[in-house]
């Protein structure tokens, strides 16, 4: 029987542990600043540029999280993106992945939120793996590599996303057969 309730100590430890990674990166920055100050400043500016590029998608992800908390109940998420969501769940997670913009880490807080509300591992992995397909960039890809390459590349990416999702589901949930 599992213990009921939350243990405050591990939660606090987890909170502190989260800062270890950024603290480690800052230590690396400080260390290399003494070796190559100019390049370290360049690296810091590059980080600023990444943050600037992320601003809009980050805001969009945050707005979606507010909407999620406002209108979407765990039962909704479970029905549309749960492991029994069927083909509509696959379509929804694929389309959401295709339409999502910006770097993938922008979407991680959103994905963590819908996972807590009942989204399945399969659909989360499918969302992340479908992001290589971008219809708005298709003309550009055709311009660079030709329509034949663009078409095959896109179709194989979509199929590959489902396979990755199935593998991740199988590994994350060994008791069940992958969908």
């Amino acid at each position: 029987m599992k213990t009921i309730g939350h243990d405050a100590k591990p939660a606090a430890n987890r909170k502190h542990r989260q800062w270890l990674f950024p603290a480690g990166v800052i230590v690396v920055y400080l260390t290399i600043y003494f070796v190559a100050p100019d390049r370290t400043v360049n690296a810091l500016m590059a980080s600023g540029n990444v943050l600037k590029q992320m601003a809009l998608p980050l805001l969009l992800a945050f707005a979606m999280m507010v909407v999620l908390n406002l209108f979407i109940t765990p039962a909704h998420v479970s029905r549309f993106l749960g492991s029994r969501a069927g083909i509509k769940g696959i379509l929804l997670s694929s389309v959401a992945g295709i339409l999502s913009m910006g770097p993938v880490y922008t979407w991680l807080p959103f994905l963590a939120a819908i996972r807590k509300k009942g989204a399945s591992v399969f659909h989360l992995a499918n969302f992340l793996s479908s992001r290589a397909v971008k219809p708005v960039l298709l003309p550009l890809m055709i311009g660079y590599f030709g329509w034949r390459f663009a078409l095959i590349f896109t179709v194989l990416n979509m199929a590959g996303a489902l396979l990755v999702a199935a593998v991740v589901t199988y590994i994350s949930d060994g008791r069940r057969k992958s969908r």
Partner: protein
Amino acid sequence: MKIAIPATAPDLGAVVENRLGAAPYLLVINTEDMSFEAVAGPSPSIGPGAGIEAISIVTDMGAKAIIAGFVSPHIALTLEKNGIAVITPVGGSVMDAVEKYRRGVLPGMTGGPQQPEVLIDSHAEPQLQTAFRKAARQFFSIFPVLAGVILLVGLFRGFISRDLLLTIFSGKVIQDTLWGACIGSVLSGNPVNSYVVAETLLKMGVSLFGAAALMVSWVNVGLLQLPAEISALGTRFAVSRTIAAFLMAIVVSILTVFLTGGRV
């Protein structure tokens, strides 16, 4: 009426489990004729979503009441708003629990089986402020690692130039495919940038295998973001997804080149 009970085994002699999400079996019992269906409970590896998954399963099967050792108060409230009665804490055998339910003597019951009832209260819609605060809390729970990833990406871009990376390609198919996948996994970012880099590689004489592998892994893998993904979705998910995406990038690039006849 159908009631759902998490149980240790798929029969009425089993013991009522404490939590829906951790139960090996979920029983949905018709209290009129005591017929029942048993399904395997969700895997605990699903994590925090296991309870929700279990609720979804039993409500899909028509359960109008859930009897368990414990149900989280906020989930119980949501269920009750949707007309599903929640009765806790209940222990002992499933058969006893059903009998007590029929007699209306389970905790919180007042002399008769609890009928589902859609409650309408003033808190049915969460307030905007609460939703906003909750989103901010969810968002900032991952913020430290996200900040670390952004700094790491900047560090990489500041110290490793694109030209330096391009020099490692040899023109050999297997080697170039692997290098393309490795570089795409580390650099990552907007897909449009991968098209530019891939085209540059092709012009430099790198095989199409390498260029295609870079394009696939560029968006799908993301080694630098791995700490953030672990923090948000768990180690097993993040590591298995990253490895699977890397291998898939190689397979997809090879298939793409073969199917296009190696020409662009």
